């Protein structure tokens, strides 16, 4: 064999191995640890959640509180790196060595979402306590074939995180948005700062605007799309949503260079006062206010309807849930912990830590002195839709939306092309 042939074969092996090694992560099978009815209370279980720094999270605080209140119980905390949390959980579940309890994402949009994991038989069904605290209209995000597989931990309002500056009142209709954009731009600032290169951020913006354009009049639009009764391309509401983004871009609503900006642009823009608001989940308002130490007052706003006569509507969704692994041998102890977490006291403590809304008992909470004051009426009236992507068929639809909005900002795509891409990704 010549040196050249040996090198050729070696190159082939290297190339093939590099390209296919990624496929081995989840090849193992999972084991079923039996139903809670056949198990004993082992008084011990493990709990996994993602972390991005050394700060103690709400998951950890409440687990320790549970052990304090229940001296015989031992919880092993498995802190996983936040940036690879979803892949790690997925791989562990497939391998059968996942923690007994772990954090999941409601719906279908993420790699660790409740519905696909439950359909793959990797999650254990939960009891009626979890069923009772499913937020209004969000059953599809937690249930499969009538059984509940995720227990909601909190509710986040997704809208505008807005700095209440003197002289820049939050607009009440879309024309007001465009007018405010122009007046703020004249001062060398932007009304909104976005991470235009991050599909997750442009996608959040589109969903926030779609709340009034699509879901205010047709709260069950996602179910209709799932049933094949409509499409994005046929939806006047979705078309208007994307057209409004194009109009906002032309009106100078976003910072200059928005199409290439990352999350750092949002942080810098808001903290340096170059922008007034952003699109994102409500927890960010609490975080920014804490970091600003009284020098700024950010609150949560719902994006205005087209006109002041149109119905105002918002987006509010559970961002995280607890699930139990199907292969867990400590299901009884794990289920008892989840029942304890569902109680209003624990729900409130967790939401306070996260800067979100308690999943149980929030109807009785007074939001008037909190960041949620502007959207309190929407929350109490139930005038909100769950985050649309958590009901969509697969993650590729959201990917098409996020990339499509970026394409609208750069002029690469038209509104109709983006809607067609989303329908194509729906499958």
């Amino acid at each position, binding site marked *: 064999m010549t040196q*050249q042939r040996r*090198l*050729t074969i070696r*190159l*082939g*092996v*290297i*190339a*093939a*191995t*590099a*390209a*296919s*090694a*990624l*496929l*081995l*992560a*989840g*090849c193992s099978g999972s084991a079923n640890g039996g139903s809670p009815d056949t198990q004993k209370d082992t008084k011990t279980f493990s709990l996994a959640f993602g972390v991005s720094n050394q700060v103690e999270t709400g998951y950890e605080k409440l687990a320790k509180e549970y052990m304090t209140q229940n001296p015989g119980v031992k919880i092993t905390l498995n802190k996983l790196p936040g940036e690879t949390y979803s*892949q790690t959980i*997925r791989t562990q*579940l*497939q391998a059968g060595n996942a923690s007994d309890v772990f954090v999941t994402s409601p719906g279908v949009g993420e*790699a660790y979402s409740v519905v*696909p*994991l439950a*359909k*793959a*038989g*990797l999650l254990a069904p939960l009891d009626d306590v979890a069923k009772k605290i499913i937020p209004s209209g969000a059953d599809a995000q937690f249930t499969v074939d009538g059984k509940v597989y995720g227990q909601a931990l909190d509710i986040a309002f997704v809208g505008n995180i807005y700095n209440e500056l003197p002289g820049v009142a939050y607009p009440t209709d879309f024309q007001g948005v465009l007018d405010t954009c122009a007046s703020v731009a004249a001062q060398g600032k932007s009304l909104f700062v976005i991470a*235009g*290169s*991050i*599909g997750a951020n442009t996608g959040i913006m589109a969903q926030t605007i779609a709340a009034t354009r699509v879901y205010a009049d047709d709260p069950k639009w996602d179910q209709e799309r799932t049933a094949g009764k409509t499409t994005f391309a046929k939806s006047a509401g979705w078309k208007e949503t994307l057209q409004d983004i194009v109009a906002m871009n032309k009106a100078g609503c976003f910072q*200059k*260079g*928005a*199409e*290439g*900006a*990352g999350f750092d642009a949002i942080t810098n823009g808001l903290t340096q006062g170059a922008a007034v608001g952003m699109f994102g989940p409500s927890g960010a308002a609490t975080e920014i206010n804490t970091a600003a130490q009284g020098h700024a007052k950010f609150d949560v706003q719902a994006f205005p309807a087209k006109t002041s006569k149109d119905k105002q509507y918002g987006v509010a969704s559970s961002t995280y849930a607890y699930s139990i692994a199907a292969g867990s041998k400590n299901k009884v102890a794990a289920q008892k912990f989840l029942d304890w977490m569902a109680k209003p006291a624990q729900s409130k403590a967790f939401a306070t830590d996260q800067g979100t809304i308690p999943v149980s008992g929030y109807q009785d909470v007074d939001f008037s002195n909190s960041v949620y004051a502007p959207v309190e009426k929407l929350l109490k009236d139930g005038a909100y839709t769950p985050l649309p992507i958590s009901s969509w068929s*697969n*993650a*590729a639809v959201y*990917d098409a939306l996020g*990339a*499509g909005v*970026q*394409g609208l*900002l*750069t*002029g*690469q*795509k038209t509104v109709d092309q983006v809607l067609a891409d989303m329908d194509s990704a729906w499958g």
Partner: protein
Amino acid sequence: MLDSETERVVLPDRGGRRAPQPRRKGLPQFGRWWWALPGIAMVIAVHYVATAFGGAFAFTNWSGLGAFDWIGFENFRRIFADSGKLLALGNTLFLAFGAVILTNIAGLAVALGLNRGLKSRYTLRVLFFMPVVLSPLAVSYIWKFIFDYNGPLNAVLRGMGLDHIARAWTGDPTWAIWTILIVIVWQQTGFSMVIYMAGLAAVPVEIEEAAAIDGANLWQRFWHVTFPAIRPAVAISTTLGLVNGLRVFDQIMALTGTGPAGATSTLATEVYKQAFTLGNFGYGAALALVLTAIILVFAVIQQRVSAGRQED
């Protein structure tokens, strides 16, 4: 084979290598072939079995969880029917060949410049090679800052009165792919330089001097004396550059995240996105196989071309 009288004079005698000493009796007998069996087993398990498993998933609709169905060549049909994937294929080839051509030209130029004569050549060699040892991710994030709308590059342009040229470089549909190419070339030039310096070290200065005495100018000495002598280095540098260029990933994810709107996606980033972000393991595996085939084809072609030239 020696081509000239000068080479016969200056090059060491290749036939003069001494045969290895026979093993003396009474010493322990080390180095049995079966000692390599654990290593061979690992190579087979990690390289060949893993490759076979990975390749098999390309013919399934596996989501990464639970059961899957065999769907034949459906994944490959989807790949070649998707204009987005064809764009990714085009970007893959553009970055690979662009990087190979530019890094080799720049690397050879730097190697020639720093080969001998210059007093500060050792310091300059270190400076040119330093980017190679840095993390591609770290380098890319620094360049992302440079290319930022409010970054140093645009500040310089505005300072020169060229405001109309300033833009969000990594978010520009035309320029984003070029920012990636610039970063790759900037970081990989040092690697090519080292390979060419090793090749140039084997070119006897006496031959060049003889050519100069015979009246050859600088370009003729390079083209007819130096370049033929470093052809093996050219083959190695271009082959490694091509394989690495086809697999480039870190720089894209850090600089553009495959944007704007997928304008800088490549087959490697699509493999990652489909398999890990979107949960389409089968489709991702099919893309990986396509990428593998492309790497193999171009590596073989490149080797054949290089071998042909050497025989000439």
